[in-house]
């Protein structure tokens, strides 16, 4: 570094009195404090009740027992892998490489909602499927879908309250009906959603469930045209109604075991269906379904042919953050996408630093 020498400075005519020095010192202190306070304000320090990602996950942890190392929701799961074979139809809607004709690798995770990684399988527990598509250009598309036809609530705050109300009581292992009743009294949109769910009964297992993005996204094609899209993966395996006998068998993993048995028989397939919204269709509220008869594009076939316990599968260490999108798929104006991304990241960060415990679906379970 160049050397620094000293040169005299210009003299001030009148020195400051000690009184005005103190005044100036106080003013400087105040300015520095205001800057620090502005920073803390941005960080939400003056809004201790506002729902933040950390408070969202705190709430999930308080509501159920904490299970270190596991996802704070959809804790019970199993890893799968396979490929997506695009038929090229999706390129009309999106320039993302995943829609070009060809085959790309996919990893995924089937899960059941709830914070308990050892909870007993139940037919009416929400089923999840997280997928990660990796295209040759290095772009990734991650999605976390569920087997519900629409989102049960409006916005992040409602979602938080619903998750708390539906957490099983640690004693009874069942949601507290009083809490749920109070929630439903304040959320007529959830009552309506639950009525819709009753007319869409769950299928017998993961392998014949339809999984939906629920949220709307913006698909942008090579010409720059942007349209709202909601996607689903629709099983090639035929629908079979839920089997009460299997549920009552006493096997706590009966849904996962059926999935393992069926993937050992033959690869499981789903069609990727893109539903295209029309101007005026609601894109900022996944609680509101789009009218029937919207254009549906079959973009290709997802094949899942291999299964692994979380003990060995790469998916244990993947955050299926639904905001990880390739160029050609963009977020819509639904605030829920950002909220989910924030909460997933918070859950991911917490479990990343924790010791990993064995999953309910063990490697030997998967080999059966």
């Amino acid at each position: 570094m160049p050397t620094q020498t000293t040169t005299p400075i210009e003299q001030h005519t009148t020195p400051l009195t000690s009184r005005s020095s103190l005044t100036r010192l106080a003013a400087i202190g105040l300015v520095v404090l205001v800057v620090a306070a502005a920073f803390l304000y941005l960080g939400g320090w003056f809004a201790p009740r506002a729902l933040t990602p950390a408070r969202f996950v705190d709430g999930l942890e308080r509501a159920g027992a904490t299970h270190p190392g596991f996802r704070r929701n959809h804790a019970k799961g199993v890893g799968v892998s396979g490929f997506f074979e695009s038929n090229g139809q999706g390129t009309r809607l999106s320039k993302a490489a995943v829609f070009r004709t060809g085959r790309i690798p996919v990893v995924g995770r089937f899960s059941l909602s709830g914070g308990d990684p050892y909870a007993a399988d139940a037919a009416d527990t929400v089923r999840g499927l997280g997928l990660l598509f990796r295209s040759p250009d290095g772009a990734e598309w991650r999605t976390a879908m569920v087997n519900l036809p629409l989102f049960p609530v409006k916005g992040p705050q409602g979602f938080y309250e619903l998750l708390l109300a539906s957490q099983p009581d640690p004693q009874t292992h069942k949601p507290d009906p009083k809490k749920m009743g109070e929630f439903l009294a304040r959320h007529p949109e959830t009552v309506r959603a639950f009525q819709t769910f009753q007319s869409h009964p769950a299928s017998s297992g993961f392998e014949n469930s339809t999984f939906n993005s629920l949220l709307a996204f913006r698909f942008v094609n090579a010409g720059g045209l942007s349209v709202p899209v909601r996607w689903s993966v629709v099983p090639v395996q035929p629908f079979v109604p839920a089997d009460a006998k299997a549920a009552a068998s006493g096997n706590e993993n009966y849904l996962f075991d059926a999935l393992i048995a069926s993937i050992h028989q033959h690869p499981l397939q789903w069609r990727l269906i893109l539903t295209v919204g029309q101007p005026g269709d609601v894109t900022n509220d996944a609680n509101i379904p789009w009218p029937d008869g919207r254009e549906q594009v079959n973009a290709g076939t997802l094949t899942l042919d291999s299964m692994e316990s979380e003990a060995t599968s790469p998916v244990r260490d993947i955050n299926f953050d639904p905001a990880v999108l390739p160029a050609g798929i963009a977020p819509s104006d639904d605030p829920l996408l950002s909220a989910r991304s924030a909460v997933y990241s918070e859950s991911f960060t917490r479990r990343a630093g924790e010791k990993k415990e064995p999953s309910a679906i063990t490697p030997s379970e998967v080999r059966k």
Partner: protein
Amino acid sequence: MNTNTTPERQQFTGSMRFLHWLTAALVLTMLGIGVAMVASLANYHTLVSIHRPVGILILLVVVIRYVNRRFSSLPPFPVTMSSQERFVASASEHLFYAFLFVLPLVGWGMLSAAGYPIVMFGSLHLFPILPHSLMLYAALRKTHTVLAYLLFLMFLAHFGAILFHTLIVRDRMFQRMAPWRVRA
């Protein structure tokens, strides 16, 4: 590079002043975005999408700035600064360079260790600089926060010291780095 230096020059060179204020604007924006995004549900995604490329931009700017600093001559310290103060000023300058270089690298490293694609904008991605490892991610994620809070405290001390010199000692400290040209 020293040709424009005269014995009377009290100001840093134009390029040094430009890079200083560019860094100041970028870093304060980043500290604000960083602290806001981790507390936000609705704006988290938008803020993270800005935070990533601006972090990499700061990494580039600090490398350019460091090289520029090595090849520039500096104005002398004002006589009002004691030798201890000069030591603190030089040490904090080096500490700022270290933080501005390491913080973006830790950010890049932690996204790599988390297995996230490191998206800049559009389809432009950066390569991972560390292997996918959750324990590594957890450690780097914490480090990123701690370093950022320390950087903010360093900024407050720097800001307060300049105000103290300029308004109380009245040694025209601010003019040394003023964005405009000051004739000696």
